[in-house]
């Protein structure tokens, strides 16, 4: 998809920069030059020195203006060359912002920030081609999860557990949203680091700002715990990024214009429930069905002792086209563990834990990697087996068709305050 987004195609002549080799002259200056020449000619023929002095003064004025115009031309030409150079190499390390909107948009697309471009506030300023590119990238990289209902809060061995401490299963409604098809890779996260993501305080939660300085790699450079000198380990560019706290995952998500999925969103994407009747919403235990198959995911005993590249194990894809929801790495969600009442126990921890889903390459039990299983971790923990993927609500995005913008803008809501996956509780 990104191959169609060759930056050179979108490079246009910057406004205000003249064509090289020409000098733009004001018509007034030309008129003054002609008048001065006429005056000097009359003075020479008629022998009137007064008129000849006026003509000479006019010619001096024109000369000064010409020199200034030549200097301005050279300066603008140098500037134009520099701008073209910047746009032709939109490398990851290039943090200089292009001066025009299209150049900036191309750079953002190359950084994987297409969802941010499709925010209605930004999308209306994009050219139709860029907007289409952003939308195509979105549908290529993310899967649409339709809205619908999901039964949560029930355990598999509900019959064996004391019903007094087991919460009743309840039905929640999930709005339509997009979910990344793959977990965020080291390569993508590298772009976040290279553009100074750890220094952009606006991306980070207010309460963690003092702690951001502590999110460093083995060499003390900002980055995931397992990295060194701000670089991911060699050969792992397509492996999911691990060693990042919940706050780092949330900051990255904001940078790309997305967010972490909620608990129910994650579960719905994996279990893909089908509503057969008002009380019957069977969801799958695993993205591919109800029976465990260790050949479709990377968990303990699957044969791998660490993470695998995100494009591997394609047979474990979910109905919606999402890869590696189960196994390889746990995935941070935005949920607070125990707060939603989805777990049967009364957890009492001083630090509110954040939920993680899906299991990892070292998860031992099969029942810990089901779509329904929920684990948790300290939000500042930077574990070797926890990564993340991002989500974005459909209602937060403009469509690929610019003509629809007007109606969409009216329904746009603030990202942070919007109910991303509004849960409408219904009696089970």
């Amino acid at each position, binding site marked *: 998809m990104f191959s169609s987004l060759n930056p050179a195609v979108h490079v246009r002549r910057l406004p205000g920069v003249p064509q090289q080799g020409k000098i733009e002259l004001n018509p007034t200056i030309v008129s003054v030059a002609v008048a001065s020449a006429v005056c000097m000619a009359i003075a020479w023929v008629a022998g009137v020195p007064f008129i000849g002095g006026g003509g000479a003064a006019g010619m001096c004025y024109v000369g000064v203006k010409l020199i200034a115009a030549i200097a301005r031309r050279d300066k603008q030409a140098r500037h134009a060359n520099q701008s073209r150079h910047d746009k032709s190499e939109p490398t990851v390390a290039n943090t200089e912002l292009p001066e025009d909107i299209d150049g900036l948009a191309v750079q953002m697309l190359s950084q994987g920030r297409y969802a941010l471009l499709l925010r209605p506030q930004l999308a209306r300023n994009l050219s139709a081609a860029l907007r289409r590119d952003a939308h195509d990238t979105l549908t290529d990289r993310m899967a649409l999860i339709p809205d619908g209902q999901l039964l949560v809060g029930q355990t598999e061995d509900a019959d064996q557990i004391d019903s*007094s401490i087991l919460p009743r299963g309840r039905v929640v409604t999930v709005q339509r949203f997009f979910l990344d098809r793959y977990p965020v890779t080291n390569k993508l996260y590298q772009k976040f680091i290279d553009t100074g993501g750890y220094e952009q305080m606006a991306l980070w939660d207010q309460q963690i700002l003092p702690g951001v300085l502590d999110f460093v790699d083995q060499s003390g450079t900002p980055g995931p715990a397992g990295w060194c000198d701000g670089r991911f380990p060699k050969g792992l560019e397509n492996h999911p990024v691990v060693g990042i706290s919940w706050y780092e995952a949330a900051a990255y998500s904001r940078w790309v214009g997305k967010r972490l999925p909620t608990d129910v969103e994650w579960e719905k994407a994996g279990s893909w429930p089908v509503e057969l009747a008002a009380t019957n919403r069977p969801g799958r235990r695993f993205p591919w069905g109800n029976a465990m198959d260790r050949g479709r995911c990377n968990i303990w005993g699957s044969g791998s002792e660490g993470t695998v590249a995100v494009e591997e194990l394609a047979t474990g894809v979910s109905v919606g086209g999402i890869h590696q929801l189960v196994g390889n790495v746990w995935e941070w969600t935005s949920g607070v*563990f125990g707060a939603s009442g989805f777990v049967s*126990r009364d957890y*009492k921890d001083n630090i509110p834990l954040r939920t993680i889903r899906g299991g990892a390459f070292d998860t031992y*039990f099969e029942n810990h990697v089901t779509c329904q299983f929920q684990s*948790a971790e300290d939000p500042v923990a930077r574990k070797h*087996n926890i990564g993340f993927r991002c989500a974005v609500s459909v209602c937060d995005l403009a469509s690929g068709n610019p003509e629809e913008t007007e109606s969409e803008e009216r329904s746009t809501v603030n990202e942070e305050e919007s109910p991303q996956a509004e849960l409408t509780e219904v009696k089970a």
Partner: protein
Amino acid sequence: MNREGQVTLDSYRLAQYAVQVPCYICSGPNTFDAELCRNCSAPMALTYQAETQKVHPRILSCIGTSGVGKTVFLGMLMDMLSRQPDDMRLLARGAFSITLQQHTVAALARCEFPDKTPNEPERWNWVHCQIHQTRRRKPIELIMPDMAGEALIEEVDHPDTFPVIRSLLTKSAGVMILIDASTLSGGTSDQDYFTMKLLSYLLELVDDPKHGWHQRPVSLVFTKADESESCFENPLEFAQAHTPGMWRHCEERFQKHKYFAAGVAGACANVRRSDGKLGRVPLRIEPRGIVEPFRWLIEQVWS
């Protein structure tokens, strides 16, 4: 049946009772139909298996304070070795040997820790198993008991309180000493002191210059290391920093020892139980470093 026949049968039974069967653990005398040793309470099935199958298993012990994770460690070790298609495989001998594995794995799969091992030796779980290795022609016969931590403390502080512990540790070919890394990281030194006590106890138990404990292999395993990543990265450095007494003790008195880090739960949380008390539960199971200490011990004992 006539009266003569009755007398003959009784004589036969009396004759069987007259022959004492020595306990495999403590060598104490027992009757032929005893289930548990009347001296040390070890299961007599170990003796009967050794006799009937003509095998003489060696003993590896797993010791540590109460709550350090001995049951979880042994249960997971058994399960991993019996499930993993690795160069080292475990095969249990006798139904009683599977109980520990079964209880531990069932509890962990429910995100609970197994029940505390009772102090009474007759209620301990004993494991008699075979270890198959691809490079060895014959399997290794092993006995590994799951001892209660409180009983261990009692025996170390007051020797001969639990004769079974004394007998087991005297006969053990090697030992895995479990140390709680999470409490050490928290700054408390109890684990350091207790491990030093255990090491001293072992040295006093067998002071034979050739076969004493200073010659036998000791693997020192920091458990619950998932709560302290630095422990996984370098267990030796962790030992020097957090258990200086134990480290010095091992350096000077034990010729074969090595430090390991292990963890079973990926994370734990406090939970209020139905009786109102707070307890700790695992949030997921991610075994790390479980097999390594055992593998090293096997190599040391059977090298």
